[in-house]
């Protein structure tokens, strides 16, 4: 550990609720990216319709922009994959099985882990710091 560097912490970030309702997803990605860049270990837990952020059926890109036909825009699934790749093991993206199944969002991308709902509390309490965003 470099002199003066902050000690490694385990951060638990949870997002509950639907994308496209607020900028919670944006905030989540910003915080996870910054924490990983600061060499902390991050667990992201998605609940409710946040489990749809990592649907495999989203593909790599959003639907084409009719007003800018040749431009490509990454899907949330692609952005999470990019974050996982760059994190090199410092980030785990967890999907609540109950919420996922309740919403039929079962086709998840490779690289995320589907976990039983009771692990939410276990992981939250085991972390050095936790933040739960959104409303059920």
């Amino acid at each position, binding site marked *: 550990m470099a002199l003066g560097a902050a000690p490694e912490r385990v951060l638990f970030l949870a997002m509950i609720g639907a*994308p*496209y*309702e*607020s*900028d919670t*997803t*944006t905030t989540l*990605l*910003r915080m996870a*990216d910054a924490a990983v860049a600061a060499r902390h270990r991050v667990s992201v837990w998605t609940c409710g319709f946040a489990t749809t952020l990592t649907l495999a059926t989203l593909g790599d890109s*959003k*639907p084409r*922009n*009719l*007003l*800018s036909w040749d*431009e490509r*825009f*990454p899907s*949330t699934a692609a*952005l999470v994959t*990019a*974050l*996982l*790749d*760059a*994190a090199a093991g410092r980030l785990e993206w967890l999907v609540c099985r109950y919420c996922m199944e309740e919403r039929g969002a079962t086709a998840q991308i490779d690289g995320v882990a589907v976990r039983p709902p009771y692990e939410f509390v276990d992981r939250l309490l085991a972390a050095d710091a936790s933040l739960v965003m959104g409303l059920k």
Partner: protein
Amino acid sequence: MSAPRGTRALAVVERAYRGAVEQQYAHVLWLALSLHHRMGGMGVLLRGPAVLYARRGQAAPALDVGRARLGSLPRYEAAVRDLLAAGAPVYVDAASRRAAGLDEAALLDGVEDVERERVAAVFAAYDRIWYL
């Protein structure tokens, strides 16, 4: 059945900032512009926090996600300019603007500030009122 060309529809936008990463280009003002291209006659009334979409000088940040730089976050100021350039009026509810602490002078050129008592008259100029 699609709306016939020439239908005048006012899009009332009251909620704002509904997912920068999720929406990127596909935000409500893009939808309004797309509808305007399709059928002509769109107008947009911004209320509540959505009045901030019409502010001049908005930041246009990119977002770093891992090694990727996402430069396609919503650009509401450009979107309002595009609507105006396409002939779609953009109105701002003056009471919401004041509640947001925004001076009328801070609005983009061409955006019309509308006092509450005039909103009914704006509505009356349209065939359809759509809350988007």
